[in-house]
């Protein structure tokens, strides 16, 4: 299968997976420092996954903590066929889904689970958010709107979207992880994306004065150009990718 060049790769932090295996082997022998190194490598990534699915920061922290304890407990079961993180994210994902099930207030109704041809009513829109999503993410209002849009997705739609966008899982892998068919995964992913797009496009079609200021660095003249990338970013702001690489 081809992977589009435009898609940003999942950060690997430039580490050799063999290195992880050595740490796992050492941790299996009881080396706590080795396990701590694994924790330090992957705790934020695991947290991002849990947060994306659960949406509650404290609960996401609890899930990540439990996931690492569980990973250590069953470390002797880890055979090294997959990478340590692949194994860890499955634990995180299972715990996150369990958490949602336990704390579910309303039984979700997925009306579109088996719809494979979603073009009938609401197709995807050929609209994009300016030219640079990294710059858009510097805007607090857009971040808030992304948060709200994720919140409004059903658990299943959100889980699939997060697995796909954050971990880059294939449809087949997601179907296996969620115990459903590949068609169901495609349907969920399509509707999740379409709903996200609807939420975000509303913001762009009717931008507030504050958002225009944010995106244009205060230049009113640029407001007429819509929500494209700002002409001048405040110096304190960094593109998302730069912010990520610096913090890791």
């Amino acid at each position, binding site marked *: *299968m*081809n992977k*589009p060049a435009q*898609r*940003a790769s999942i*950060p690997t932090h430039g580490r050799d997976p063999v290195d992880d295996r050595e740490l796992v082997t050492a*941790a*299996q*022998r*009881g080396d706590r420092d080795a*396990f*701590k190194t694994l*924790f330090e490598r992957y*705790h*934020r*990534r695991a*947290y*991002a*996954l849990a*947060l*994306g699915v659960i949406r509650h920061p404290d609960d996401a*922290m609890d899930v*990540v*903590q439990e996931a*690492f*304890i569980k990973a*250590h407990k069953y470390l*002797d079961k880890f055979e090294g066929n997959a990478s340590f993180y692949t194994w860890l994210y499955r634990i995180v994902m299972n715990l996150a889904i369990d958490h949602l099930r336990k704390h579910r207030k309303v039984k979700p109704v997925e009306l579109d689970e088996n719809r*494979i*041809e*979603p*073009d009938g009513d609401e197709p*995807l*829109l*050929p*609209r*994009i*958010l300016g030219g640079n*999503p990294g710059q858009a*993410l510097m805007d607090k209002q*857009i971040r808030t709107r*992304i*948060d709200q849009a*994720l919140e409004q997705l059903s658990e299943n739609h959100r889980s699939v979207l*997060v697995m796909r*966008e*954050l971990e880059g899982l*294939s*449809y087949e892998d997601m179907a296996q992880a969620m115990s459903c068919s590949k068609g169901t995964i*495609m349907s969920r*992913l*399509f509707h999740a*994306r379409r709903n*996200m797009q609807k939420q*975000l496009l509303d913001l762009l079609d009717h931008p507030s004065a504050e958002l225009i200021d944010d995106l244009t660095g205060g230049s009113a003249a640029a407001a007429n150009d819509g929500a494209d990338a700002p002409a001048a970013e405040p110096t304190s702001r960094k593109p*998302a990718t730069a*912010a*990520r690489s610096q*913090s*890791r």
Partner: protein
Amino acid sequence: MSRPTSSPTDLELMEHADGERDDAELAALLERDPDARAKRDAIQQIGELVRGHLELSADAVHDARFAAMWRRVDGQLVSPATSLWSRVAAWFDRYRGHVITGAVSAGAVAALALVLRPGVSDLAGHVDMRPVALRSTPEIDSVDTPGGSSTVINLDDEDGHAAVIWVSAADSDPEAI
């Protein structure tokens, strides 16, 4: 999924954007269709936004919170080398032969103790004395009767075989019997 003919469907575009569909014909259609390209780009941009937002959210968590998390994790770790189960498993591996021999011996002793315990040794009380049908009919030719005489009459008919035994005392008066 059918191959694209004039304009790719949204699902085909999504598969292409996700790297699930490597299709030269679809790629050619995309080259000619700016609307389809814009949709594909929009799909990819949603991914960028979601991923970037979640990673920035994770990065925004202060290191101290994860340090505290590690302390809690560390406090609950059971070293694989010292866990109870590991120690039991290691001990069993080392003494496997002794354990199996001991278990078999103990089982045998327990079985004996069960059989020989008071009250169970009175086996006669448990003997089944009901008559059973014999596989072959017994045949009697003669009966030894000291101090008397006997006559054996074997009868065979369609119902089977029967033996009639007549015993009489040697000096008894037949009339008195």
